[in-house]
């Protein structure tokens, strides 16, 4: 997790490798730190936590990207939430790919939606492998060094 991440948000991904047509399961929880009253800026400041699964391309060409699924978790008046999220991977891919001109990456992102403020975004890289390839397919790109 990085990029102006919400320090009070935790996402635990069951398995960061999934086959096309399956899903990533994750537990999401946000518990404000001591002294924080809904984002430290008054009640109702944090409106929701959105968890998304998306892919994007890297490489020589211009970037293509697509968010395949977004789940919005409501927060209480203290900015707290917790829940189980399952993010489905489309059956037709694309898979994580490491080519000569094209690289396809997948990530799960969690966005803390703050009213009248900059949203906080956390991302975690995941791998999508072909159907039948979990534990067998080794052609996905190397993980990003974090």
């Amino acid at each position, binding site marked *: 997790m990085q990029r102006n991440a919400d320090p009070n948000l935790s996402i635990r991904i069951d398995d960061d490798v999934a086959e096309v047509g399956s899903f990533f399961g994750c537990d999401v929880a946000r518990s404000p730190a001591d002294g924080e009253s809904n984002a430290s800026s008054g009640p109702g400041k944090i409106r929701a936590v959105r968890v998304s699964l998306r892919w994007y391309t890297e490489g020589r060409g211009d970037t293509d990207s697509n968010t395949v699924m977004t789940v919005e978790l409501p927060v209480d008046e203290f900015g707290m939430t917790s829940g189980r999220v399952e993010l489905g991977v489309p059956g037709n891919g694309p898979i994580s790919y490491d080519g000569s001109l094209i690289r*396809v990456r997948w990530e799960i992102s969690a966005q803390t939606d703050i009213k009248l403020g900059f949203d906080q975004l956390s991302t975690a890289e995941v791998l999508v492998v*072909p159907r039948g390839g979990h534990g067998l397919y080794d052609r996905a790109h190397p993980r990003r060094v974090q």
Partner: protein
Amino acid sequence: MATGDSAGTPPPPGGRVLVSTKGTAILGCGATLLVVAVGLIIVMGFSGGYVVIPTLIAIAAAIALGYGVKEMQKWEAFELVIPVWPVPLGATLDAELIRRAKTSVPDRDIAVRGLIICREKVTYQVGTDTRTERNDVCKQPFSTIATVNDGVFRAPIPLVVPLDRGGPTIDFEHNDITWRVDLEMEKLSWTSASQSFEFVVAPYLDTDAGVIQDAPRSQP
């Protein structure tokens, strides 16, 4: 490049028949060229212009058109029968190239050379220009012998999609991965000596492919 469903050969269960459109494309180009050349001859003839070059073009287009028509009267279009569609990653399939004669043709053997190609194609913007780059990440040659028997041309095509080169077909706005099989045949007319069929590779593994069992586990 061939697309579309079967015309003559029924597709196998779970498979597909790709039909070559090359013959009709050549005929279409020839006809268009002929019409343009004749139009130029008429216009330039009335205006007193120089009609030798349009006349030569018209003659060449007419010859090509006649040759193509003759070829189409003699043969149906090429068909590539693929037993599994879309083709899984790591698959080794026994595809078949078929062409049926419309008239009597002598039995004979024909050497076929082929190339299975996986191509990455990207486009990117530089200023106001859109540039394109292509790279063939997989080029797998093969050769086979076609037989013409009882008026049917048949060639076994080993359709191999390696696991370690290329990836499933993608068709994004700026990034594409395509697979195709290019075929070169001896002793055939110029309109049919080379054929190309594009096929789709799916993002799932061929579970019958022994190579998968030997592949190591994904590593971080």
